[in-house]
């Protein structure tokens, strides 16, 4: 043990050896020391892992601004899917061995039974598709800037797989060639330069600027509580156009 070693410090050159920070003479002495000191060999192995890690700095990049909204929406969707699965458990399948035995022995009757079973299965699926969970409705009144006659209202209902949005708009201004309207959910942190947006879909209206649409989104309007209708051009799927209508979700109501 060198004279400047302390019990809690161990050999003072172990860390510097791993970093390659010893003078040549010191490095030679320490290398010789390693031949006979198992404790220092272990310490060096630990420190060399640190030194290798220092050689791999992480890239200096920022995640895209809209990744937060997409991530939170993914979590929300997973939560809703789990609730749906818990509320609507799949019926247990019939025992295959019995069906197989019956089919093998009664081919004519089993063919008819198979058709009947298929019809029943289709019926089960249709019931599950049509039937909705007791749907909470969130109403989002939409208003335009002063001087504009545009107006609208969205009603979002939680249902299988996400939120169904019933959107009505009136007196929207006419659009230029190639343009369309887009409906967005905005999160609480949404601001210029830091978008927190999830699209709910796009639509066009006739000359009267009026229309009724059904859209779909994974975004929970109680979390992404601001809705915006903008006029967009085809491009990179981000929000670039002027906000024509905007509104804030009211607290969830009972089934509407």
């Amino acid at each position, binding site marked *: 043990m060198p004279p*400047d070693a302390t019990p809690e*410090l*161990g050999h*003072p*050159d*172990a*860390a*510097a050896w*791993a*970093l*390659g*920070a*010893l*003078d040549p003479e*010191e490095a030679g002495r320490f290398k010789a020391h390693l031949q006979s000191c198992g404790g220092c060999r272990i310490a060096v*192995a*630990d*420190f*060399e*892992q*640190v030194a*290798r*890690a*220092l*050689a*791999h*700095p*992480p*890239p200096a*990049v*920022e*995640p*895209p601004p809209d*990744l*937060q909204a*997409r*991530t*939170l929406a*993914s*979590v*929300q969707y*997973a*939560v809703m899917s789990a609730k749906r699965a818990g509320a609507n458990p799949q019926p247990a399948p019939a025992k295959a061995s019995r069906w197989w035995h019956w089919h093998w022995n009664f081919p004519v009757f089993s063919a008819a039974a198979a058709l009947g079973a298929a019809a029943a299965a289709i019926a089960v699926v249709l019931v599950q598709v049509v039937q909705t969970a007791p749907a909470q409705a969130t109403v989002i009144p939409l208003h335009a800037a002063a001087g504009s006659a545009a107006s609208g209202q969205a009603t979002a209902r939680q249902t299988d797989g996400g939120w169904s949005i019933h959107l009505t708009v009136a007196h929207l201004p006419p659009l230029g060639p190639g343009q369309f309207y887009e409906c967005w959910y905005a999160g609480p*942190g949404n601001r210029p330069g830091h978008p927190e947006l999830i699209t709910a879909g796009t639509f066009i209206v006739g000359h009267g600027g009026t229309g009724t649409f059904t859209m779909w989104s994974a975004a929970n309007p109680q*979390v992404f509580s601001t809705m915006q209708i903008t006029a967009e051009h085809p491009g990179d799927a981000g929000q670039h156009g002027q906000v024509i209508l905007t509104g804030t979700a009211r607290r969830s109501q009972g089934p509407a």
Partner: protein
Amino acid sequence: MLLSDPEDRGTAEEAELVAQIAAGDVGAPMTELYRRYSKRLYCFGIQALGNTGLAEEMVQESFVRLWRTAAGFDARRASVSTYLYVLARSTAADIRKRPSSRPLLPVEEAGVPPQADTVDQILDGLIVHEALGTLSPAHLEVMRLAHDEDLTQSQIAERLGLPLGTVKTRMFHAMRALRAALDQRGVHAA
């Protein structure tokens, strides 16, 4: 111990956020954890997967897995930081095994270096560089001179006007703190 007390308080605070998520609140607690960890996970994803689109997918899936497993998280066994790195590592491994349907933006277009060695070495790099931020200025300066300028301890002592013994002590303590950071996150010498 070079790691500061605020880190301990932050660890307990984050464990409470996970507990809230486990209790069903996926709003503010999840948003806060995203704010704290998204950049680190994204950087890890870029290095581990070599692609910004897949890195984004990894970040999203990692937080979904956090929600799914939050009820099983035990703060006595690991920090939230460690837990998220474990989730990210397994998510990256799963993504590597399957094709992605997302349009892919190659790493070169994102201005980042090519994919590094193994996933564990990438994670080591992330953890250690994070831990550098917790060193005291005196220890960080010694490490910077040794690592970035390739100075020996004697040269560092001369540059800073310090006794050689002081430089040795600071370097040893700094490396030991970085090593502790790897140990805390469940990474051990091979």
